[in-house]
């Protein structure tokens, strides 16, 4: 392996590249999907290949292939160089990567129980048991469950003498119950929305989630939602968001706008830019003083946890928002050097056939002081909303509108009636400035987002978001009015 990788780097350098790196990635994914008691698919998937990134005359080229042979290494290296030369025909300022990176070492995701040692029968048993529990509830039309195991081995080398080897292990799973009534469809998910919760870690987390033990509850909630009161229409109130929804709020309204490539316009044609422009760094009140947000790639179970990023920069932790003030970006080597800073290790590619982009690591809201029941008791009127159902935000990440699967009225400090079709909207800094309560570490959880899209060609990243329930004042809710 190392010989082939060195060959690619030598070829690039001898052809005039100022810098080159190569990643070899071997991914194994095992997934099971069950719907209404039928095992819809058991799929074991393998993918292996390599990608070579070269910098020639200050311009980038990248090529990739699945065939790890000497001949293909030579062809792909040559193609990457040719592409870089073509990039040079329409070049901006020469790329400056800042200080060299020469990381060495091995990293393996710590797991208590290697999920790949769990038999297929046992995995299937968990999903079928959860399905049976959901099936006990009348009125549930669609019952779904899935488990996903991923083991990704990655080797990285660059022309600055870095060589790292890491194995990232992920475990994901979830169940969904959908109930259908007269012109109404309601869904409840567990442990997270969009099919599953996912972590870096082992089967111990799947055991902790206890999918069968929560199946009947969510099935009942889905049915109950069909006849629940609708979210009050277009009004302003206090909102307490559950931890899973806070995680999504952090992802969309903080995680994306702090990507420094967006700030520099690299994603302007697609994902968009960012309202957190350069001059705001260190000079902008992003939220209330209770808002502390950190980006790290070291937290246990975070989907953004690894040994090194895809430029060989070591995993680390960095403040993003400190007591409400905006203090940090997610950076690559190239973008950090434009700010005369050093990368904080956020470059990741979704696979061997994609270039690394700045991606969220674990962007987390730090825990506050409140117990959840005290926070609710402290709220005269409002709505408690949980589990994301719909998410939309503008291209600068200012205006958002999110919907949740379930809500509860808060009256005189207690949770009241269940509410359906809850939506809320706001402007990012105004919303975070209205935050006046964050729950403590007892309620804080590391949520996984395994479906974060960015880049062209499209890349799906896995990101982590630690979050606890939090309270926001004067929030506009009820944007959906049934016809």
């Amino acid at each position: 392996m190392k010989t082939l990788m060195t060959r690619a780097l030598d070829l690039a350098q001898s052809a005039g590249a100022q810098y080159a790196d190569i990643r070899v990635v071997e991914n194994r994914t095992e997934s099971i999907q069950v719907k209404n008691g039928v095992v819809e698919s058991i799929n074991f998937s393998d993918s292996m290949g390599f990608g070579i990134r070269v910098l020639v005359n200050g311009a980038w080229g990248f090529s990739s292939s699945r065939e790890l042979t000497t001949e293909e290494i030579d062809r792909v290296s040559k193609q990457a160089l040719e592409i870089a030369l073509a990039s040079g025909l329409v070049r901006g300022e020469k790329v400056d990567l800042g200080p060299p990176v020469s990381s060495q070492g091995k990293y393996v995701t710590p797991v208590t129980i290697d999920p790949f040692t769990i038999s297929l029968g046992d995995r299937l048993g968990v999903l079928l048991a959860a399905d049976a529990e959901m099936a006990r509830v009348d009125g549930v039309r669609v019952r779904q469950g899935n488990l996903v195991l991923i083991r990704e081995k990655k080797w990285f080398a660059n022309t600055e003498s870095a060589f790292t080897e890491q194995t990232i292990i992920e475990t994901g799973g979830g169940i969904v119950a959908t109930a259908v009534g007269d012109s109404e469809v309601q869904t409840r998910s567990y442990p997270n929305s969009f099919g599953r919760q996912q972590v870096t870690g082992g089967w111990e987390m799947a055991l902790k989630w206890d999918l069968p033990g929560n199946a009947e509850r969510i099935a009942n909630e889905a049915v109950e939602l069909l006849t629940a009161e609708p979210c009050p229409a277009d009004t302003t109130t206090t909102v307490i968001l559950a931890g899973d929804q806070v995680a999504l709020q952090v992802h969309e309204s903080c995680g994306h706008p702090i990507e420094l490539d967006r700030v520099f316009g690299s994603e302007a044609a697609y994902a968009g830019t960012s309202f957190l422009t350069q001059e705001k760094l260190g000079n902008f009140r992003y939220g209330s003083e209770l808002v502390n947000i950190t980006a790290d790639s070291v937290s246990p179970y975070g989907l953004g946890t690894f040994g090194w990023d895809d430029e060989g920069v070591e995993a680390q932790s960095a403040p993003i928002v400190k007591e409400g003030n905006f203090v940090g970006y997610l950076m690559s080597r190239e973008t950090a050097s434009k700010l005369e800073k050093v990368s904080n290790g956020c470059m990741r590619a979704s696979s061997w056939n994609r270039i690394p982009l700045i991606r969220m690591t674990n962007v987390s809201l730090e825990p506050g002081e409140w117990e959840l029941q005290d926070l609710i008791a402290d709220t005269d009127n409002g709505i408690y909303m949980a589990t994301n159902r719909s998410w939309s935000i503008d291209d600068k990440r200012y205006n958002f509108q999110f919907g949740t699967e379930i809500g509860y009225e808060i009256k005189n400090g207690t949770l009241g009636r269940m509410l359906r079709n809850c939506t809320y909207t706001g402007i990012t800094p105004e919303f975070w400035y209205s935050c006046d309560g964050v729950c403590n570490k007892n309620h804080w959880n590391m949520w996984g987002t395994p479906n974060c899209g960015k880049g062209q060609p499209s890349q799906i990243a896995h990101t982590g978001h630690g979050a606890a329930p939090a309270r926001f004042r004067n929030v506009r809710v009820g944007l959906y009015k049934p016809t």
Partner: protein
Amino acid sequence: MFGREKAKDIGEDVLRRAGKDAAEVILSFEDQSLTRFANNYIHQNVAQRNVTLMVRLLRGKRMGLATTNRLDGHGLDILVERARANAKISPEDPDYPGLPELAQYVAVDAFDQATAGYSPQERAKVVGTACRLTGEKGLNGSGLFSTGTNEIVVANTLGLFGYHSSTNGDFQIVVAAEDASGREQGSGWRVTDIPTESLARAAIQKAEDGINPHQIDPGEYGVVLTPYATEDLLNMLNYYGMGAQAVLEGRSWMNDRMGEKVMSELVDIRDDGLEPEGVPMPFDFEGVPKQRVDVVERGVVQGPVYDRITARKMGKTTTGHALPPTMRSLGPIATNLFMSPGKTSTEAMIRSTERGLYISRFWYTRLVHPRDCVITGMTRDGVFFIENGELAYPVKDLRFTQSYVEALAKVETVGKETRLLMSEFGGQATRAPALKISEFNFTGLTV
């Protein structure tokens, strides 16, 4: 490229390794290149070559899947063994109707040698022209130019064999001014059909016209939608209800509306995988020939697209819209959508509007509620207030929350020109006209 014969050999090799078991192979090859630009220069420039080989192995009614990108003999052995092991442990699947029989396919042309051989230098030349044009105006250009080749084989142990090769090209440009932007896109399987320079000039013009936008109050407005915005309406109606699985599960906007006139009689929507004006594909991922499906005819809901599983459950015939078996949970979807054009130019639509909004594009649209296909999203890259038949002034972006079914019920005019657009996630093409709609619900502002 593999070519038909080599691809067939690989498929047959896998099926042989399945032995006495029934099996199906889906082999897809892609050779894709993409040049991306921002701030008037190329900042990302990539190429990839990959295959995905999937086998579905059946032991009676038990089914197992395995996928790989390794084509050596050992890799194929492992692939088949994994699929077999998965089939052994899987409970019987009462819904799967078994492998499809041998089929005859209509020959469709979707391969262009010039597109297949397009070089990084050629893409750079096109991008260079676009960047020069935006730079000369003091504006900021960003976007992409991609070209590529795809091959797909579907084969099974009942003798079914389908092979299809295609090329693709896509040019997208966003031109940004201080407080405005304009976007254009052109797609097709012949790269020379994409008018890249005129698209760049149109995006520049729109950005210049959009400078110094006014803020208006949210509320109900009549709108003129470009084909880009119409494409979003069609795609969301597709994702959330044009497939039989969604109808079966009661989450489609078609539920309780079948056979009813719920859209304007000017609205005709069909899916046609064989139509040369789209991106043709002769069969689906089960190897079933594609059928034309009239989804909405003169505003009346006709029915969804089917794969073999949903057709069997609902007593219908498949229309050739299966996705790969790993995506079975989604059910079938339309992949070559067309909305029939009308007789009116966009200019005439604007001239006939006393007061309304001209919308260039929707962005980040997401489902709020399924049964009415209620969608929220933002406008982007050019909104203009129409007053007395003219584009009076640019407007800041707005958020909307709107039932797309109701929006199509309020279509007053359909544009005479259509545009072919590749979907955001690939694999799907839509040909859409401009639309004039009497009411559209805008619910918020941005900064």
